[in-house]
């Protein structure tokens, strides 16, 4: 009788729950970007992963990246939405990089059966202010979660890629800015 009561309660809980069948999305990309750029979300830019950059990203991630990656930039602040495989399934996470250091990490979609801890601030705050060191690793240690080592490593890899891509974009911008300054100086000299 006791057994039937417990099973009955479980079945009733399942049957009455309205959420079954909808998406497991913890935060949408729109709300993540809105929080990252509270003034106004800048238009998305596209970074094509050309040969060397693609090789670098592929070496870090556990999967081949797409041909290009969208990002959002406002001065020295960039935001990235990245995917990487944990144990079996891709984890989608958003990263905000400010002046070469991670400012915010947010798991947007988590599909793994273990390692739910990675989506909560008590885990993601470990990435705060992490930079890339000379060896291309994070400048801060990230402590793991028992039984979810692969999910933790996926998050760490994505953080490294976000910092790598941010550095690349900032370099490109600096290059454009230098060219622009040079062009202006040349014009002034010819006048």
């Amino acid at each position, binding site marked *: 009788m006791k*057994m039937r009561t*417990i*099973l009955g309660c*479980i079945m009733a*809980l*399942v049957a009455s*729950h309205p*959420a*079954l*069948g*909808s*998406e*497991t999305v*913890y935060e949408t990309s729109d709300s993540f970007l809105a929080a990252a750029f509270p003034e106004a979300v800048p238009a998305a830019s596209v970074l094509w992963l050309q040969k060397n950059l693609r090789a670098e990203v592929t070496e870090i991630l556990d*999967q*081949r990246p*797409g*041909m*290009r990656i969208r990002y959002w930039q406002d001065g020295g602040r960039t935001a990235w939405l990245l*995917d990487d*495989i944990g*144990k*079996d*399934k*891709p984890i989608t996470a958003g990263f905000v990089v400010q002046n070469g250091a991670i400012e915010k990490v947010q798991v947007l979609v988590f*599909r793994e*059966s*273990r390692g*739910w*801890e990675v989506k*909560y*601030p*008590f*885990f993601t705050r*470990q990435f705060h202010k992490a930079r890339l060191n000379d060896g291309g690793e994070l400048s801060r*240690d*990230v*402590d*793991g*979660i*028992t*039984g979810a*080592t*692969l999910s933790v*490593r996926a998050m760490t890899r994505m953080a490294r890629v976000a910092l790598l891509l941010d550095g690349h974009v900032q370099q490109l911008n600096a290059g454009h800015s230098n060219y622009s300054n040079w062009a202006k100086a040349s014009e002034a000299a010819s006048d």
Partner: protein
Amino acid sequence: MRVTLMTLLILVATATHAAEKSPDEPISLEAVWALVQGQQAEIDQLTAELKATKAQLKQTDSKAQITEEQLMATADYVDEVQRNREDSRTSIGGYGEMHYNNLDADDSDNDLKEVDYHRFVMFFGHEFTDRIRFFSEVELEHALVKDTADGSNGGEVELEQAYIEMDLDDNHYVRSGLFILPVGIINETHEPTTFYGVERNNVESIIIPATWWEGGAGVGGHYGNGLSWDFAVHSGLEMPTTGSSAFQVRSGRQKASNAVANDLAYTLRLKYTGVPGLELAGTYHYEQDPTQMSGDGLDEGQLISVHSIFSRGPFSLRALWARWDFDGESVKLANADEQTGWYVEPSVRLNIGEQDWGFYTRYEDVRGARDRDRFDQWELGFNYWPTEEVVFKFDYRDRNHDLDSESGRDFNGFDLGVGYQF
């Protein structure tokens, strides 16, 4: 003839001016007219060339736009193909481990020199929707299963997991089917790359009979402060009360194979992982009747297990304690009503030459039902991970039994192992 008045006036003025400078060379009207006509022809030609250049530029712009659109469409397609491949709703994984044991016992009859492909496991999973999924684990133990006349064979083919899990919301789930019980450390996470030692620890073999799975239903939740809970109602043990394995918990596992279910069992676990690198967990498990038969001298059983894992940087410390309490006359007479075990395992994992090496030591103390299952053991060794999902292991073990009658089983020796997961 499109000669404007202004052009004509300019030309006349120019001619007059020239005449003023060179009075000896008078300019005729015909000469001016010829000059005007020549310049007009030049203007017409330049205008035509400008129009052609503009048309060409427009065409180039249009072609560049088409090329860009084609490039974006190609990239979209390639990314979509890749995404579809990665988003496959059916997943396959697995792990395996082979061991070499070289153990010398006090009584040489108990020596163990053996190579055994201990486990070959395949995972199959499928997501029906984003919130409803299936997961399974099929294991071949000891590499060989054969059909023999006397019923003896080499190993076992086991279905260790096969359940449907549904997310109720972002924090709660229910599952039903055949699943691994939420108890201890090794039971749920037992891929060889995740633990030290060629063989699994003894406490989570003799006291907690890992891998321990049952058929039933469960529910659980996890929260942003790092707390989680799991509760399951499931099939119970059917422990023998006579013979060489009497009251041995491990021998009571029915493995959900035509399992007698006169008396079900319940498992509740609370876990805290709110600090990165820290895991604290406790499990309470209740067996209404661990023999599935009343009046046989073993009436009910309760298991309590607690463990902690603490990792900081390269250092890690694992500790686990578990205890069974059984009620019943027979089990008390056999001195098997209380079965306990604990272990502590400090370790350090270092990155040496771009590759991971882990060094550990472990002390275990076990008091199981059988005399041979009462011992303490020291162990030390290392794991080498050439990549995250492959491990090579070495360990040295020294076991001493509590009872003099079992001293012939005392041993020391080493083990080698190789394992993988994907």
